[in-house]
């Protein structure tokens, strides 16, 4: 059974959400502030499989907690916000969240996103593949540039895999959203763009010779094949 940790200071919401997810056969843990959640990650040998994190909490806020968490853990993270500030979404994704939902959300939509992030790229072949210096090992969900291993979140890995499978061709944003985030694209959905910009940064930091990701206006993105 997959374990989900919910971090939210809204106790009633936590209780309702826990009931809902338990009914869908998840094991649910609760924390009501960021410090407690981070302490649990530091202590537990077996971290949860997925984290649902509220942005606005007293004490340390969700975004700060996410930044600290990302230094060690690459587990899938969905952030929730009731603040309604579009900037939160971008900031959250830039800090390494895999997905974002604003409150109030349709519970079924949250469930779909949770399942999408936990269903780790079962589609496609499991054959290792490489594009220039970049190598991906789908069975282990690991990626390298030369000898350097990339530290990727679930969504980033899925996006990179989708781009690598079509290397040299444009992959549109709708299918990247499907494959990377496991859900249909929405209007004003910048999630893929933010994930791709993080990916670019990680690739170029690993090596200046790593393949780049180009954006094609109105279509999507493509992973460049080395010309050599």
């Amino acid at each position, binding site marked *: 059974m997959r374990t989900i940790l919910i971090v939210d200071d809204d106790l009633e*919401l936590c209780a*309702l959400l826990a009931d809902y997810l338990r009914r869908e056969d998840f094991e649910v843990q609760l924390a009501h502030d960021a410090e407690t959640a981070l302490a649990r990650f530091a202590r537990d040998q077996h971290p949860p499989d997925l984290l649902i994190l509220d942005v606005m909490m007293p004490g340390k806020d969700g975004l700060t907690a996410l930044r600290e968490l990302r230094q060690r853990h690459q587990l899938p993270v969905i952030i929730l916000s009731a603040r*309604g*500030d579009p900037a939160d979404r971008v900031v959250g994704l830039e800090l390494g969240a895999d997905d974002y939902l604003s*409150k*109030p*959300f349709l*519970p079924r939509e949250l469930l779909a996103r949770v399942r999408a992030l936990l269903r780790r790229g079962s589609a496609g072949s499991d054959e290792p593949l490489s594009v220039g210096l970049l190598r991906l090992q789908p069975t282990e969900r690991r990626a390298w540039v030369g000898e350097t291993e990339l530290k990727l979140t679930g969504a980033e890995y899925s996006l990179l895999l989708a781009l690598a499978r079509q290397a040299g061709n444009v992959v549109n944003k709708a299918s990247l959203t499907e494959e990377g985030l496991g859900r249909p694209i929405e209007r004003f959905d910048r999630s893929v763009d933010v994930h791709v910009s993080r990916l670019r940064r990680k690739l170029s930091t690993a090596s200046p010779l790593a393949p780049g990701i180009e954006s094609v206006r109105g279509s999507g993105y493509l992973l460049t094949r080395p010309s050599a």
Partner: protein
Amino acid sequence: MISALVMGRIARENYTTLTPDWHDLASDTAAIYDAAGIDAVSSWARPLQRRGIQIALLENGRNLLMSPLPPPMEDNLPRLLRDSEIILHPKSDVTLVGLDIVSGDRTLRFLAMRAPPRGSGPRFFSPRGQLPMLIEILVSLFVIGVVSWLIARSMGKPVEQLQRAVRRVAAGDLSARIGAPLVQSKDELGQLARDFDHMANRIESLVERNRWLLRDISHELRSPLARLQLALELGRGEAQSTVQPYFDRASREIVRLDELIAEMLALSRAEEGAAGMAPEAVDLAEMARDRLDEAQIELDNRGLKASLDAPETAVLEGHSVLLGRALDNLISNAIKFSPAGSEIQLRVAALANGVQISVEDRGPGVPEAELSQLFSPFYRGSNGLRANGQGLGLAIVERIVQVHGGRCLAANREGGGLSMTLILPGSVKP
């Protein structure tokens, strides 16, 4: 004021230090009397009067000049006639002179009085001619110049400091303050600086509080909605299939309420305007391309086409988040009202002084009489077609355009459909 002060001082000094030579004056008078008679003396006396000197000529106590003696002279007449030569000072600024002069075989008594002219202050008195006066004027002008320069210099720096702070606040930096040393100064400029800083504090805290309030309202309203949505979903799982439509309805109402909150917050943010945000260069042509790309999914879903007519760039100073929102709202409306298979036209054009953006659809349009109400909050057209939105979309657009100093126009198109135009002023960078 300063020049009056300086001139007055110079004049007063001249008055007391430069004394006319009374003997010369007396013999001149006698010579004129001898040569041309008493009428010539009275006309000679007139310019002297303007310099504060009055003269009289007596023969055996009889006044030869027809005018009456001035009162101080009249009052002191016995003493003035006593000795062959006498100078009296009945008041500190009044000099009376009595002299015997000889004209032919007669002895005449010459009387003179020097007193400050009545009514006005002391006048220039320079019996030695015009040249020293010119020098005095030049000196005084020089002094005035130096003093003015010193004052201008002492005011220029604080005024510049004030101006800098005012401009920074106007540009959106609400943390700008004048601060030391000007606010410690005790003069009027120091007071103005203190008042300015006080005002800036208030504006900053109001804007800040408003911003927090918006976030809190959003949080406080949306958290219960989130719980409600979850509670409904849990209840739905236990409920019979006959009541499922009611759960669907309740869930949809929560979504609508959430949209309404979002739009009211957006309107409120637009009303708050760009306070506290510095304007930036916004490429409206680029923005139009981006926004149309974003809308592509929705266009495809509805079976609509879209065309864009825009220059390479159309850069304007503005607030990109707000302008993007305005454009999104116009595109959303056009999509909402367009019949399947029709085309939406988006145009961006550089004007002489600004940019014009228009979004045109082939929807039902709006009755002419209602065009002007289109931008009112919660306005809904009477022609039966209700949008799914909350009726705030165009109010938000108008507010955003107003914040940028522009205006919105709505018109029905020839051949059917609505044309919405935004005119945004500003210098357009190529």
